[in-house]
């Protein structure tokens, strides 16, 4: 029933396009390793981050 974004760390290059597209604060975090992490308990699963990602590193899936 609940969906949230999932990140594929291999494809992520830390461009932050997803962070600028997410309407909810503090969901997508930028790690010191220059990759992103998703706080799935706060994600509403709208899919804007997946639409913004040019490398297909994010997808919306059931939690």
């Amino acid at each position: 029933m609940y969906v949230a974004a999932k990140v594929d760390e291999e494809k992520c290059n830390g461009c932050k396009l997803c962070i600028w597209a997410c309407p909810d604060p503090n969901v997508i975090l930028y790690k010191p390793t220059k990759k992103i992490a998703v706080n799935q308990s706060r994600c509403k699963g709208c899919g804007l981050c997946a639409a913004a990602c040019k490398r297909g590193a994010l997808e919306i899936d059931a939690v």
Partner: protein
Amino acid sequence: MSKRNLCQISPGFEEIMPAEYRDLVERGPYGKGWGVAEMGSFKELIEEHPLCAGCGLALSMRLILVSLPSPEDTVVVGSTGCSALAFPQVALHNIHSLFGNQNAVASGLKRALALRFPGRVKDVVVIAGDGATCDIGLDSVLHSWFRGEKITTIMLDNEAYANTGGQESGMTQRGTVLNMAPKGKKFGKVAVPEIARESGCVYVAVTSPAKPKNMEKAVRRAVLLARDLGPTYVQLLCPCPTNYKFKPNETLDRIRDQEKQGHFRPREYYTPEAEAFIRQLEEAKG
């Protein structure tokens, strides 16, 4: 203002404060001057809000709060509408006024702050929806511009009264059919940016959250120019997936489509003094 401890917990209370509050004290943006480029690596001023998934308005709110040049010295005035639902989660001083009354409240607030803190710069930023700015509160908005009040007015234009089920507003496009506007709107969008330019605003920008860097620049310019020169106005297009019935992941694509089709024209107007001021600011920045 010196970068003193603007936000701190009283000694002895560290352990019982909520995790979000502690996070804000440890990693908050107060006094740091961070902007859109640093997003994701600090705690933002807005916390988990109840707005819909994929809401363009929520994205705009988030980017506005990140773009404020000095959040610790900013007071936000809100008004009724979808944006009002997010204000209780914002870690800034904010006032919820009556519907359409936001610019009148902000005018008084700006004058009172100038008396209370004579040596300090205090920004007053109005963040309201299109209903509050263009329809119900147009008189107070216009008169605050005529009087030259030094406040920033930001309109979150979602092109409908989204909170009450989808009635048409002055900013809805011609021919739009909504839940509570079944016959389609009979006239086009009200030209508020042009009205603002003619009513005494020194800086007017129309932009959208689809271009975050651009939007940050517009909001920063608007707040900085309002400190010295006069009223400024920023209009942000933020489509509503709930009332316009599109998928929540299409919000930003919709803005780009509208721009391509010519329904949405990003633009900027400024007076000669404002232009000189902006050039001076950007030279100082390097």
